């Protein structure tokens, strides 16, 4: 792995095996390959019931009546609950704005909204009972886009809004608006030799994690409930669940069950409150597992967007200005829309130097499916647009698209449109150079002596071409993503670290509430503990709410923030261990008092390498435990009029080169290769880093050529809620993904690391689009690209 630039900060003990920087294997790997790992959908309890949710069949309607009598009469049914059965005055929840009803109250605002819940002794009985609930709807006109949302006679999706955004939005059907104004666009435009405008459309993408929403709620003897759940943030769930149940938070115990992927789709609650309500009502454990159809309705999606961009450049290729407007469809409930708006606006310029900007991003309330967090979070949509603009500008100037980008690339010290300086490495030009320098895959690799191998051609085993009409194209893109929660959010994490002797050996236990969703946080926590405490055996305690919040497994933040918390707690434990050592053994060797001491290989050693004691002897009869919160540098909100503010913690950069082959007659695309170069600051676990980059790249590929939730504009109903109709990349659709990892330390971050999970999802999509444009000569202003966009049919 190439390593350039400043050394990363390793505080101590780096020689202990299995520490940071090594590709140690997952602690849950064996359980996951033997089928023993307990996912939330695998939970089982004696006497448990199955919960089922009845969802609205229409997008926007008043509920005239609900009749549950037939459902209740069905043998095997234990409970049916509607809005009227909610136990407290708190009947709504939400991440930032509590606008989402636990069960619909008098009105439904989107297709698939929960209306009633059922508990029964067999899942099929629960399904049939739900189907017997009669709901009488009086349909209302649907709001589906900016025009209908802001029309003079538009129905308000939410009447009587009192959230903290209502004061600054131009219309109650706008959730949040964030302008960013800097410099003088009019003057800058006058300097431009070329001006390029574009209107771009980004389709609605689904996280499509494979493990469906699920969990088990077990009523407890003290009147509380214990919820075993797949989520991204236990404490955020807890804060939203407890008030609805009318329970103090300590009576709602939460344990993380196995999580089958997340990608943002588990930031919002799904079945958590419903399972708890049914468990408390029936006094029995209740399990709810969505099927795939329901999963498409059960979580928020990536915001579809319209993006209006204008860039100017001088004839020598320098960007003059950016004027853009980004309209995100937030759907029926706010979810994470305000934060997505903040990201979309503050990152709309991309990784480029542009001093004069006039930017606006808004999120709408509509009757479309609610949209919120998904990997890339507002930065993905913007990247699709600004990278298309870069190619158009380069073409108009007669410049090479990579050289044009490099000429305008930001670097350390660049001032963002928000006025925030980029104060750590920003190797944008270098990433582009690296990705371009990778060897290209050979042409016509599908050709062989026995004829064409159709498996490597567009259309694949459908046998639609043997190379006729197939054209190759190459495209580049680069993106910028923020790491961590922004805009003044108190983005902390907590770690509890314990060190003691077990079986004659010093052992560390790391306990956090971090949601392991597959990213490998548990692997990294053990590595950090080995590095900082010099032990080989580290136990990772299951994540639960018996320890302080770890924040969300989102925003590429967990290795940075919870990793930082684990490192910090380990350092405090280390100091206490050394204190014990000095107290117990200090008189045996003067170095205890005079030398810099390290914990390494199970021993206390001096920085000169002299062994002072075995850790097992120091800790004999004693245990050291520390629980401590840890915070990264604070951020500040963006000014609501100018967008100025030091809003972000850290930036993350990746660049892609896509090579595609297009069957121009049928409009079929085969992505041949998607090369990526990314700066990761410090690769704590190189194998996991590459896995994240390849996985993120593939999700970007999906939304380039296949993935889109289709919502009928007339009815606002979802038309393809299944894996038969919503396609995600298979192994046949996914090319080889060579990865070049750069490690330039960020001096502000633990070990110099950079959050990595999202950046590769950004630039992958526009690189594929650029390659298809390169092959076809078409403009292609929307994603995903479908065959009809390529053939004009």
């Amino acid at each position, binding site marked *: 792995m190439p390593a350039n630039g400043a050394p990363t900060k390793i505080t101590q003990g780096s020689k202990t095996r299995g520490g940071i920087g090594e*590709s140690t*294997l997952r*602690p849950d790997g*064996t359980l996951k*390959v033997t089928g023993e790992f*307990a996912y939330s959908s695998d939970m*089982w309890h004696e006497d448990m019931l199955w919960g089922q949710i009845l969802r609205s069949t229409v997008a926007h309607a008043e509920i005239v009546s609900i009749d549950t009598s037939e459902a209740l009469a069905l043998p095997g049914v234990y409970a049916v609950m509607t809005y009227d059965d909610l136990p407290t005055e708190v009947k709504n929840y939400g991440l930032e704005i509590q606008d989402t009803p636990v069960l619909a109250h008098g009105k439904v605002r989107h297709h698939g909204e929960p209306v009633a819940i059922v508990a029964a002794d067999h899942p*099929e009985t629960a399904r049939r009972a739900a189907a017997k609930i009669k709901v009488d709807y009086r349909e209302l006109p649907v709001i589906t886009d900016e025009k209908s949302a802001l029309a003079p006679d538009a129905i308000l999706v939410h009447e009587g809004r009192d959230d903290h955004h209502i004061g600054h939005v131009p219309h109650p059907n706008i959730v949040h608006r964030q302008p960013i104004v800097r410099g003088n666009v009019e003057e800058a435009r006058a300097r431009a030799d070329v001006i390029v405008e574009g209107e771009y459309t980004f389709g609605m993408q689904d996280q499509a994690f494979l493990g469906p929403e699920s969990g088990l709620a077990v009523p407890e003897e003290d009147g509380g409930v214990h919820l075993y759940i797949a989520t991204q943030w236990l404490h955020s769930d807890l804060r939203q669940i407890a008030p609805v149940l009318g329970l103090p938070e300590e009576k709602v115990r939460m344990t993380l069950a196995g999580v089958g992927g997340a990608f943002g789709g588990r930031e919002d609650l799904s079945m958590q409150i419903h399972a708890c309500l049914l468990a408390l009502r029936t006094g029995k454990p209740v399990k709810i597992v969505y*099927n795939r159809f329901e999963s498409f309705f059960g979580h928020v999606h990536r915001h579809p967007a319209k993006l209006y961009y204008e860039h100017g450049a001088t004839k020598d290729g320098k960007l003059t200005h950016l004027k853009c407007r980004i309209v995100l469809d937030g759907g029926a409930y706010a979810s994470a829309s305000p934060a997505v708006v903040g990201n979309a606006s503050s990152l709309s310029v991309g990784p480029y130097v542009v001093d004069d900007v006039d930017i606006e991003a808004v999120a709408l309330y509509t009757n479309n499916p609610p949209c919120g967090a998904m990997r890339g979070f507002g930065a993905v949509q913007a990247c699709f647009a600004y990278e298309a603009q870069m190619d158009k500008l380069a073409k108009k100037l007669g410049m090479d698209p990579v050289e044009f980008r490099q000429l305008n690339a930001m670097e350390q010290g660049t001032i963002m449109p928000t006025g925030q300086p980029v104060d750590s490495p920003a190797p944008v030009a270098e990433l582009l150079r690296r990705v371009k320098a990778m060897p290209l895959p050979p042409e016509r690799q599908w050709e062989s002596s026995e004829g064409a191998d159709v498996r490597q051609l567009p259309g694949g085993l459908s046998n639609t071409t043997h190379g006729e009409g197939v054209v190759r194209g190459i495209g580049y893109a680069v993106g910028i993503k923020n790491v961590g929660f922004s805009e003044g959010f108190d983005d902390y994490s907590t770690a509890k670290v314990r060190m003691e002797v077990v079986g004659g050996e010093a052992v560390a236990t790391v306990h956090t509430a971090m949601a392991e969703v597959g990213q490998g946080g548990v692997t990294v926590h053990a590595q950090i503990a080995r590095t900082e405490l010099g032990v080989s055996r580290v136990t990772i305690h299951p994540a639960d709410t018996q320890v302080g919040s770890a924040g969300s497994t989102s925003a590429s933040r967990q290795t940075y923030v919870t990793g930082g918390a684990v490192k910090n707690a380990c350092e405090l434990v280390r100091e206490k261990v050394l204190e014990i050592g000095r107290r117990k053994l200090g008189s045996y060797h003067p170095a205890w008092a005079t030398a810099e001491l390290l914990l390494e290989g199970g021993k206390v050693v001096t920085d000169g390498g002299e062994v002072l004691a075995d850790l097992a002897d120091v800790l004999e009869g004693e245990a050291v435990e520390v629980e401590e919160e840890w915070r990264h540098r604070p951020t500040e909100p963006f000014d609501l009029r100018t967008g100025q503010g030091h809003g972000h913690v850290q930036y993350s950069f990746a660049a892609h080169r896509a090579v595609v082959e297009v069957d121009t007659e049928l409009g079929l695309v085969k992505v041949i290769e998607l090369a990526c170069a990314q700066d990761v600051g410090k690769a704590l676990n190189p194998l996991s880093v590459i896995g994240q980059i390849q996985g993120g790249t*593939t999700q970007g590929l999906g939304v380039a050529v296949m993935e889109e939730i289709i919502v009928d504009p007339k009815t606002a109903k979802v038309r393809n809620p299944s894996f038969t109709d919503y396609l995600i990349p298979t192994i046949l659709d996914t090319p080889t993904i060579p990865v070049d990892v750069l490690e330039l330390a960020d001096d502000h971050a633990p070990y110099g690391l950079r959050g990595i999970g999202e950046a590769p999802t950004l630039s992958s999509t526009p690189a594929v689009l650029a390659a298809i444009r390169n092959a076809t000569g078409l403009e292609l202003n929307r994603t995903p690209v479908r065959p009809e966009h390529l053939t004009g049919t």
Partner: protein
Amino acid sequence: MRVNFTVNGRPQEADDVWEGESLLYVLRERLGLPGSKNACEQGECGSCTVRLDGVPVCSCLVAAGQAEGRDVVTVEGLADYARQRACGTGSCGTPLDEAKGWQAKGTDSQTGEGTGLSPIQQAFIDAGAVQCGFCTPGLLVASDELLERNANPTDADIREALSGNLCRCTGYEKIMDAVRLAAARQSEGV
């Protein structure tokens, strides 16, 4: 109804099975074998892949009654299945080295470390092919079947064989690596 079939070499009997229940449901909810995963119930994702009389199938699409009298292998039985295959039809005890290794390592109740794994299971761990792991059981059963019939698959062969198994985390590269690794180890006799 009652369904009798063999799962991972052991005769099983499931009672009170409703006619609409899938083989997947009976494995997961009635036989305590939740290793096979339910991610789409439409045969699109392959997470529920099991061997039915040796043939990889989506167990969500097999009615439980169709399994009557037949042999099923799930991810839980993959290690034993691979061990028996390695022995052929003759009798086969535990090799001495393996017995020693077992003794030395023990089984860690938290991580499962020390559990006997099949070559493809070990390769998935070693290659980093496991992230969230939800697709892993199905991919393991499918990959194992591929290597059983094709000891030296080309990349195109691997992609074709695994095209019915969706993974959302890895981008498939590490899964390709894992299958290549298992094939290489198999041919080296490791």
